[in-house]
């Protein structure tokens, strides 16, 4: 296997230009929303709103203002598939469409997927959705086609501030830790890494530097595998089966008409 490759997204230097979104759409030939007609969110400068089947990068705008708008701050984060080391989508996919590549990334094969949508509910981050053009579940592939010929993904190539960094995950972690140390030294003590630790789903190959709680960026504080309750719910169902069987035995047992 080649080295594990991933993204380190440093949200402190994101300027919200959306070059990553555009580059992703261009390279992956993703369709425009609503046939190209501009649909505004109406309550935010963020008109992409969420990751879905035709948005594999999403620059999230966290807009925090006082009611009179005299005080405020922007947090910007280019969100993407986390390429989890323990990937919930891959675990539940019943067709085998979702695979782990030689770069330790998670890719959905569009020619295999039949659109059952199990992966959509299984993803702890709400990353996956149906692409209406293909009728299959789609998400970031970490530009698998570009990686195979030695190119870097379109989004990180386009990022003008190096908020999105691409490379071997081990190198990215060192770079990210150094960056956190530098920010702490400069007084930004809130800076921390989200998903670089193996405790979170075995580690996220696409991890983030944040300066507020995960939920502020609409990231789950404690993402888990979908199979975490598989055993308990299976055993409880078996117990239910036994009880139903016994109830049937009690209710239907021969009432004496047999010789």
């Amino acid at each position, binding site marked *: 296997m080649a080295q594990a490759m991933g993204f380190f997204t440093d949200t402190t230097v994101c300027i919200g230009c959306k070059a990553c979104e555009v580059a992703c759409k261009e390279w992956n030939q993703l369709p425009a929303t609503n046939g190209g007609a501009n649909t505004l969110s109406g309550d935010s400068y963020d008109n992409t709103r969420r990751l879905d089947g035709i948005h594999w990068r999403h620059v999230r705008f966290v807009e925090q203002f006082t009611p009179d708008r005299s005080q405020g701050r922007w947090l910007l984060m280019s969100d993407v598939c986390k390429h989890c080391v323990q990937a919930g989508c891959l675990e539940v996919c019943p*067709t*085998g469409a979702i695979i782990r590549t030689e770069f330790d990334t998670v890719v959905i094969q569009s020619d295999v*997927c039949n659109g059952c949508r*199990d992966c959509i509910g299984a993803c*702890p981050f709400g990353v996956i959705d149906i692409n209406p053009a293909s009728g299959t579940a789609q998400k970031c592939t970490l530009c698998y086609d570009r990686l195979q010929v030695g190119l870097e993904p379109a989004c990180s190539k386009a990022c003008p501030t190096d908020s999105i960094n691409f490379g071997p995950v081990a190198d990215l972690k060192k770079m990210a830790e150094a960056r956190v140390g530098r920010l702490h030294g400069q007084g930004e003590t809130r800076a921390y890494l989200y998903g670089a630790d193996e405790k979170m789903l075995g580690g996220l190959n696409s991890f983030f530097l944040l300066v507020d709680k995960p939920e502020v960026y609409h990231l789950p504080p404690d993402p888990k595998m979908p199979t975490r*309750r598989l055993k308990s719910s299976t055993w409880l169902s078996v117990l239910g089966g036994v*009880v139903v069987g016994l109830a049937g035995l009690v*209710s239907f*047992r021969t*009432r004496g008409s047999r010789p």
Partner: protein
Amino acid sequence: MNPPPSTLFTAPPEWQWLIVFYFFLGGIAGGAYVLAVLIDLFGDPLDRPLARLGYLIAFPVTVICGLLLILDLQRPLRFWHMLLQSETLRPMLKPWSPMSLGSWALLLFGGVAFVSFLAALADDGRGRWPRLAVLRPPGVLGTLVALIGGALGFFIAGYTGVLLTVTNRPIWADTSLLGLVFLISGASTAAALLALLGRRRARTSVTGLHALERFDSLMLVLELIALVALVVSLGSMARVWLSAWGALLAVGVIALGIVVPLVLYRRSLRLGDLSSSTVAAVLVLVGGFLLRVVIILSSEGV
């Protein structure tokens, strides 16, 4: 302040009405087969027509289930990718994925239910192959078929709840009790349907109908306990049901679908009042359907 539950940060798979109907009918198909087996193996010979009815229900309903699932796919023609790897044509099975295991279980259950369907027809002297009657208990071969089909029937009735739990969605993934609740509800709705259809047939024994009513009463009590445990197990996530969904659960599922039928079944068993037993069975079926509606659609809306 505690961090919010992580299941709130996920996306809905948009399983809607086709899946609601599938979950309801899957419970009935599995439950009807299981009841037929229980009656065949432990019941009075007088009740064999009721068991026969169970087999006659299970197979066609299973076929409808399969069609509903295929129609729900975004690429229906690729339904077979659930069973065979599309490139190598080797079997595709992930035992830890309820949807993968469920696809196989539904296929196998459909096969066994078809065998039992034919055997039930043959046993009655109808159908072209009277010898197929050996595939129904009490013979050794028939008992074997019944045991395999019964195990698969239990699986079909319950795995849909486990499938919902093995996601990261609010409510579904916040409890381990959905499989248990669906299994009990499947048995209960199947008993209600059997009682309802059995009553219209001249050969159905009254004692058999009463046994079904007693069984369904037991199931309803268990379902009520399991539902209370479910709400408790949801913890703070139960707040999602402080809404029209919760009202539907309380009124449609619990009051009209469980409590009222329990009272009516009691009346029927004590006074032999046929009409209250009919109303009870209809209400149980409606309540079982609404249970799936609430569980599936309330999470989809979060």
